[in-house]
């Protein structure tokens, strides 16, 4: 899973969000490291919706503009959990090897 996709799913894990909300949330989650752009975001949302991982929660009109809220589906939640588990295992492997390497050099 690409990092942008992972971060979008992460952003939606705590509740529904609109597009701009996802962008600011992803910036906050990554402490500004990832600046998601509108083109990337909506192409990803479209693909995630087709794959059944994300769905439209509701819509509202703010200052004359449409704002659409997205949320994770059950399948999306499961997919994010699997991906988080995979990343956690990678981090654990990297950390333990770094500790081992540190132990050998000191």
């Amino acid at each position: 899973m690409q990092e942008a996709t992972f971060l979008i799913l992460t952003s939606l894990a705590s509740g529904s969000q609109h597009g701009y909300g996802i962008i600011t949330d992803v910036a906050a989650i990554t402490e500004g490291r990832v600046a998601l752009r509108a083109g990337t975001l909506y192409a990803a949302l479209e693909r995630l919706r087709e794959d059944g991982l994300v769905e439209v929660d509701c819509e509202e009109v703010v200052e004359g503009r449409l704002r659409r809220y997205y949320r994770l589906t059950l399948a999306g939640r499961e997919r994010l959990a699997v991906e988080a588990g995979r990343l956690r295992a990678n981090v654990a492997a990297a950390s333990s090897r770094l500790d081992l390497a540190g132990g050998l050099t000191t």
Partner: protein
Amino acid sequence: VSEDVLLERRYRRLLALYPRAFRYAHEEEMLGVLLAGAGRRRHPGVAETADLLASAAWTRFRPRVPRSEGTVFAAVRLMYVGAAVQLLGLLTLLLTLGSIKAAIVRQDPAFTAAQWHAVVNAHIVPDTIGEPIAAVVWVWLAWANGRGRRWAPLVFAAFLALTTLSILVSLAQGAAVFAPAATGVAGALWLVGVATLVLLFHRRSGSYFGRSRARGLGSSWRDTLA
């Protein structure tokens, strides 16, 4: 005309590059997001423009098959692999021209430069033109099959039949002896083609092509939002 209206117009010009169905679904909310992030900018930023251009191109040409449609999903990806292998075949042929000529000379020491020229004109030049065209056909068929066009699997079957015929003709002309590397790549291409065909005509793929008309992006959004 105010600066805000001008900026909106500039963004709309970029959003016009997306497919109609995608714009129907997302143009207004994307515009909202773009304007919200624009701050005091009067023109779309360079990185933002590049992102919109890339995303519009990707949205137009990407394989649009849900992962749940496992067999078609795999077949479409294999077709992109097929396009890459096709180009690899051409590259292999061009890089091994020297050894092809050496193999022919080994078989026929009296082989002349004029005869080599004739071989190049009869085989190498048509391949140099034909293989990139075939790669484009693989991509086009990936696009058509990915969108669930009913005719697409049949056209792919016909295309694979032509590819098979072309490989058989090459083998009959001694390609395996004179150009073993390019023949190996052609064999790999044929296997990719057969695997794709099996996936396209798999029992589970049938329904995907059967309901192509109802799968339009715009209509599915209208259903979702109805």
